[in-house]
């Protein structure tokens, strides 16, 4: 595991907060990735172009850093059955629960939304329990 790097964590976190603030100040939208992606793929929704642009920026970021010499490495992933099951749960769950780490965790808590505070506490606690089981009980 890479050593804990609080300076990078703080710079990166500040950039995430800045992006959420700018998106709201400029376009009046919440920077929630599951909401943006979900509404993009939902056939019933309109106003797609800004969503495509935002997600293109999110994907472009590591390529920009790679052009500047930053190492681009694929993350460690479990086997495909777990990957598919987890992807389905994340997709369905974030739509049912109206948000993910960005929409609830950053944007929602930043506006002191009780729903987002409860949702964030729930998904962090559940994920911790899952890791406790997969890493220590199995």
């Amino acid at each position, binding site marked *: 595991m890479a050593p804990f790097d609080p300076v990078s964590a703080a710079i990166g*976190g500040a950039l995430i907060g800045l*992006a959420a603030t700018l998106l709201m100040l400029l376009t*009046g*939208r919440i920077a929630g990735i599951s909401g943006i992606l979900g509404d993009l793929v939902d056939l019933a929704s309109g106003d797609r172009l800004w969503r495509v642009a935002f997600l293109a920026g999110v994907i472009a970021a590591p390529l920009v850093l790679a052009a500047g010499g930053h190492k681009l490495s694929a993350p460690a992933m479990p086997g495909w059955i777990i990957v598919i099951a*987890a*992807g389905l749960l994340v997709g369905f769950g974030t*739509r049912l*629960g*109206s948000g993910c780490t960005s929409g609830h965790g950053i944007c929602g808590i930043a506006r002191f939304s009780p729903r987002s505070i409860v949702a964030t506490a729930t*998904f962090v606690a559940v994920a911790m329990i899952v890791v406790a089981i997969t890493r220590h009980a199995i």
Partner: protein
Amino acid sequence: MRILSAFLCGLIFGLGLVISGMTDTTRVIGFLDVLVIRKGAWDPTLVIVMATALAVSMPGFVLARRRARPLLADAAAWPTRKDIDRPLLAGAAMFGIGWGLVGLCPGPAITNLATASPTVIQFVAAMIAGMLAHDFWRRGTAWRRSEAAIAADG
């Protein structure tokens, strides 16, 4: 301008995810693995990322709220719901299970598409399928409910 702004905001967001280490699944799982705190092997990165992101977005959102309208749109789409309902809790729990299993939430999953990793592509495809399945199911139940309402009325 609005589209360019959205792209640049996405870019800054993605840069933040990569620089902070949140695209690294071992780091995220290292944070979620609270049982190793006593051993000193816990990774507090996500706490720092959340805290600094909120330190910027909290005053930023206060500023945005004070403005009558966004700079490039007619109105801001602030969420309005306040109720804690079952879908919120069930959805957050489902998301938590998936997040704990892989260590990817939607933002870092999208960012990691840049690595062209086949398993990341699988994850994102499954995630989109899950989102579509939810929308399909929701519309189905909404339709049945309206049918039941019609039946009850007539």
